[in-house]
């Protein structure tokens, strides 16, 4: 959004400088592993990039799972999901700075995001379920403005920093000899654990049964005596907690700042469009796919292009194509299956 116009050259500062760093080169700031163009394709580097892609995919899954759950059960498109990601990151960074413990911060991020999700659901989102998508888009767009500016109000424009917890601060040696951050591996592990947990929650528990019932027929489970308003609040808070959790974990790899949720949100949209809206399985497959394609594209494209042009030209052309790659893949998948890979019905 624009700051009010004072001079004709104002668009130069449309975004606050804190957001500018988000836009340099790689648009996913936590992929801050420098990729030298023209490097010889070594297997160690390849494995490292593969893991980075997996880590991105796992994070995207946490975001996409919440989005797709909320859409599946309540039929709501929530643009403000990225704001909940930001809330989680800020809560974790702030609490960790106050207490000195990353783990308390992580717990705080879950609690803060879930609580914020529940409050927003009860105060605003609840009124939007019966509206058309246009109203939902607009209202949640307004929520983004409120969240972003509100966060800037409370925490200021200076990014917060969050350190990787001591227990996970080391490196592991990968096959091939290169060293890899233990913390990133841990994120992959946690993401897989959350995916399994979510699967168990939805397929084994009573709450999960209600969620599935809500997905297939909202009116019916209300008629059967399930308190549907509370169920909606719980689902929204659950999605919010997943987003906040993702934000907190990624917060240790990048600076915690206003606007950090937006690039991730848009990738999460791509993920659920590819996977099929409403499908958790689709979100998982889509997230891994997008994570790997995006990371490997940025890594491999300049090298592919260097086969038939100069190194510096190949680097720019490769980077430009790589930044578009997931969208191209999305277009191709939609051309074949407009409803996504795992859509229901």
């Amino acid at each position, binding site marked *: 959004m624009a700051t009010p116009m004072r001079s004709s050259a104002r668009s130069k500062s449309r975004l606050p400088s804190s957001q500018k760093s988000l836009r340099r080169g790689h*648009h996913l700031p936590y992929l801050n592993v420098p990729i030298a163009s023209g490097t010889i394709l070594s297997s160690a580097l390849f494995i490292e990039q593969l893991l980075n892609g997996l880590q991105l995919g796992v994070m995207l899954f946490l975001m996409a799972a919440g989005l797709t759950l909320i859409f599946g059960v309540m039929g709501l498109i929530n643009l403000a999901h990225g704001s909940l990601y930001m809330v989680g990151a800020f809560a974790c960074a702030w609490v960790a700075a106050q207490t000195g413990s990353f783990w308390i911060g992580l717990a705080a991020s879950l609690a803060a995001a879930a609580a914020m999700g529940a409050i927003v659901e009860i105060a605003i989102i609840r009124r939007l379920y019966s509206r058309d998508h246009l109203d939902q888009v607009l209202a949640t767009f*307004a929520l983004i*403005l409120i969240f972003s*500016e509100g966060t800037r109000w409370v925490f200021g424009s200076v990014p917060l920093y969050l350190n990787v917890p001591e227990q996970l601060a080391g490196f592991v040696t990968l096959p091939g000899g290169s060293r890899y951050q233990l913390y990133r591996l841990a994120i992959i592990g946690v993401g897989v654990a959350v995916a399994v947990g979510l699967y168990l929650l939805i397929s084994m528990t009573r709450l999960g049964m209600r969620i599935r019932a809500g997905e297939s027929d909202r009116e019916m489970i209300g008629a059967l005596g399930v308190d549907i308003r509370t169920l909606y609040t719980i689902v929204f808070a659950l999605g919010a907690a997943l987003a906040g959790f993702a934000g907190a974990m990624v917060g240790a790899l990048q600076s915690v700042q206003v606007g950090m949720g937006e690039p991730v949100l848009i990738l999460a949209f791509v993920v659920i469009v590819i996977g099929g809206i409403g499908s958790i399985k689709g979100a998982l497959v889509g997230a891994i796919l997008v994570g790997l394609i995006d990371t490997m594209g940025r890594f491999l494209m300049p090298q592919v292009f260097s086969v038939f042009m100069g190194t510096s030209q190949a680097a720019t052309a490769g980077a430009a194509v790589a930044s578009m790659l997931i969208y191209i893949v999305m277009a191709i998948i939609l051309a074949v299956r407009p409803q996504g890979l795992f859509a229901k019905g």
Partner: protein
Amino acid sequence: MTRETIINIALALVLLAIPFVATQMGSPFYVTLATRMAILALAAVGLNLALGLGGLVSFGHAAFFGVGGYAAGILASHAFSMQPLDLGFAEFAGTNSMLVIWLVAIAAAGLVALFIGAVSLRTSGVYFIMITLAFAQMTYYFAISWPAYGGEDGLSIFVRNTFPGINTMVPMSFFLLCYAVLIAVLVLFWLVGNSRFGAALQAARQNDVRVASVGIAPFRIRLAAFVISGMITGLAGALYADLNRFVSPSMMSWHMSGEFIVLIILGGVGRLFGPVAGAMMFVMVEYLLGGMTDRWQFFLGLALLAVVLFARGGLIGSLAGKVRHG
């Protein structure tokens, strides 16, 4: 004359009057503000064709806005540097002429809209919203990562492009030019809305199965509307580039797409002058709030939320009442 027609004429006159009154009162800055209103209104008129008449909630119109802007920026930069623009198969000289730039901007935005529309219109509902958003982000990231035209830093237009017979560097002249384009496009919108094509488009919004059953393919109607819509927004982008004499990827950011939707909802979805009313209100509120507090985005968000939750139908809707049928 219906009440809506009277309101429309009043809005058109008010927008026209703002810069004259401002100049009289010795605050020429408002001329630029009014120009901004006219250009944003133009961009939203384009979106209104797809969103209002066709029911296609595109969250990616910033892409066309940006493509139009870059068409102006790139052609002007080649004219400035005297280097021909090499497209591989042929070389073109840059130009400072707005007429040429507008044609190129319209054509380029139309091509991009054709591609995005052809893929996105295979889907509907939320999918459509997300896919148009994603494609707009694709162009945004492309603009950032392609360094030839400034990349992330954007591209300056050193001298505003020229229009035969008009000194465009005079703010008032440039305003009148933008205003004339806006009125012309509004006439076009009205003609389209009342044509057989417009009838088919609106029918497809209400019930596409029925439209298909009388032998009209909704996909082709919608694609045509989406392309025309993108072209109009592209033209607005070229004017916006000339207004700021600067083009940057932020013209393609999703905030811009959101802003266009906001303009339409504020004014009234599908109404002829909805985007004009919305743009006038939005720019005014943005300016006034921005003057009062640094936290103006917070309050803008609250205001938008209140409009969505409590005031449906937008400004024109509340002034002129429901759309009359028949």
